[in-house]
């Protein structure tokens, strides 16, 4: 097994990876910016190395300094976490060129799957259903209009390099298609340095359902069931759960089989997530995109399957074979995760960085909190506003919601505003309780009802 791993990330995922390293007897090296000296990850790490000033571009995205730190600390492997450089195939390649193992897929499959257009083509090749849309990049407004008319309005315009809701636009007619396409291209060029966009059918009532997979370097790929992440605000996931309350066992198995098929087609190894959009009315699912990294919401799958995904990820990166087969995966009970952020939910979820003066996390049977925060910690304004992920695991969805309600009630965080009150309202909303939420629920309905 690896002797020493560098964690090129921060916050809760850095702490999470350190915990996995500990369990595997691996030393953890954490790199950090000058703003992150006092973090729990720095404190827990065996070695901590400062790599730059607060701005992510000069620290957590600074490939040179990260590699230099890895060589200085003589690490065997680099874990990229999520966000930052986790899906940067150039970074993965540089790491490997330096004879350091990258804990992720090959640069080739990352390239093939990380680009929305290429990934869709790959899905079509593999026979995985995709949202009706342009066969590739839209070449011109005229090309776009032709495609949109063929699919039928409304359509979605998406930047191929986008993610997290950026570079997306809905068009209801030819005019808004042209203006939306130009705007999306401009936004994508500015944000990702790549203006390429595609067009897809826009589903009116949809749920976001994703399949967690993991593959080893020996060609084995196993699907670990789905996560339903339909409760989103502006395409940002707020709540994730497993199993999905809206799909049946046959659909579940088909989706899992398709996810495995896609991963095998791309010769994928590492943990990964195949995202689908599920059309509630047609009861049909379509491939959306694949994330070639560990995800924020991986804990939901860990709770129901009992598998430690980060440990498994490290093991397959080392070259080990998966310790389980598809037949071993028997998810138990129901798990829900909510993201507790330092945000003022009543004022457009405005970030609320600052010092946490009091912090008591909930605990008890079926309650898990993944966090890097503690009383006395100052949340810096430079990065995301996540405080913690609260994950509950009950025998069924009703029990999980009850546990969640109690855990949110018990959670004490003072000094910054948090999204705890938002989640308390959300999980008592009858639409959430009855699983009638679509991906548009929060943006279009929830706030009207709760203001």
């Amino acid at each position: 097994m690896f002797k020493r791993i560098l964690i090129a990330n921060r916050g809760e995922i850095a702490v999470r990876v350190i915990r996995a390293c500990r369990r595997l007897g691996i030393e953890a090296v954490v790199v950090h910016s000058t703003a992150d000296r006092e973090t729990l990850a720095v404190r827990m790490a065996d070695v901590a190395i400062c790599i730059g000033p607060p701005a992510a571009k000069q620290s957590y995205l600074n490939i040179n300094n990260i590699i230099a730190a890895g060589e200085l600390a003589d690490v065997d492997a680099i874990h990229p976490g999520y966000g930052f450089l986790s899906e940067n195939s150039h970074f993965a390649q540089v790491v490997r060129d330096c004879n350091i193992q990258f804990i992720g897929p090959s640069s080739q499959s990352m390239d093939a799957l990380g680009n929305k257009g290429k990934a869709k083509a790959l899905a079509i090749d593999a026979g995985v259903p995709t949202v009706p849309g342009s066969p590739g990049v839209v070449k011109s407004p005229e090309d776009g209009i032709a495609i949109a008319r063929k699919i039928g309005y409304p359509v979605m315009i998406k930047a191929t390099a986008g993610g997290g809701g950026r570079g997306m636009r809905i068009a209801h007619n030819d005019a808004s298609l042209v203006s939306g396409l130009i705007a999306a291209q401009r936004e994508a060029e500015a944000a990702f340095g790549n203006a390429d966009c595609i067009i897809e059918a826009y589903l009116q009532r949809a749920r976001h359902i994703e399949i967690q997979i993991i593959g080893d370097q020996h060609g084995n790929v196993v699907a670990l069931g789905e996560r339903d992440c339909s409760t989103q605000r502006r395409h940002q996931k707020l709540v994730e759960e497993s199993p999905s309350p809206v799909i049946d066992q046959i659909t579940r198995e088909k989706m899992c089989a398709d996810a495995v098929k896609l991963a095998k087609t791309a010769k994928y190894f590492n943990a990964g997530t195949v995202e689908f959009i599920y059309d509630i009315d047609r009861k049909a699912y379509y491939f959306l995109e694949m994330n070639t990294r560990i995800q924020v919401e991986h804990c939901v799958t860990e709770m129901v399957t009992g598998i430690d995904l980060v440990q498994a990820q490290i093991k397959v990166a080392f070259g080990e074979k998966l310790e389980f087969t598809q037949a071993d995966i028997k998810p138990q009970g129901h798990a829900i995760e909510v993201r507790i952020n330092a945000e003022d939910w009543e004022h457009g979820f405005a970030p609320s960085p600052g010092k946490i003066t009091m912090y008591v996390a909930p605990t008890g049977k079926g309650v898990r909190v993944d966090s890097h925060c503690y009383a006395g910690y100052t949340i810096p304004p430079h990065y995301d506003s996540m405080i913690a992920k609260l994950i509950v695991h009950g025998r069924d969805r009703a029990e999980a919601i009850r546990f969640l309600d109690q855990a949110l009630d018990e959670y004490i965080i003072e000094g910054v505003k948090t999204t705890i009150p938002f989640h308390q309202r959300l999980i008592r909303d009858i639409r959430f309780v009855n699983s009638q939420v679509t991906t548009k629920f929060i943006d279009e309905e929830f706030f009207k009802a709760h203001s």
Partner: protein
Amino acid sequence: MDIKIIKELTKLMRENDLVEMEVESEDLKVKLRKGGHDVTVAPVVQHHAAPVQAAAAPAAPAAAAPAVDEFAGCKQIISPIPGTVYLKPNPDTPNFVSVGAQIDEGKVVCLIEAMKVFNEIKAEAGIKGTIRKVLVQDGQAVEYGTVLFLVG
């Protein structure tokens, strides 16, 4: 908070020739250190457990903390990258610079080996004057922000 308490404490420091002071009550924690630079903003690689060059590193900042008045107003040259410092071009030659050397913008002050490459560290724009203190040793591991030289 009221600046008076800090003034009182600095007065105490002045009167008693102290260079460092920590005051902690149930609600208040004050940490004062005289001089032009604060070591806490420029630590070297932190080794918590065992692995790389464990013993030498944590002791370094305290040992290197200079008497304050002497270096007040000095400018810092910091390491831009984690790596290993080399103070001389090769083992048989003298240091790039030593205490007392006059330097100007662009002057190479040391090498930092990172990723098998020896990076020349040069005095940045605005850094000009005399090397007052060398804060690192030849072959020492440094991280981003480690203070290498004081120039005044």
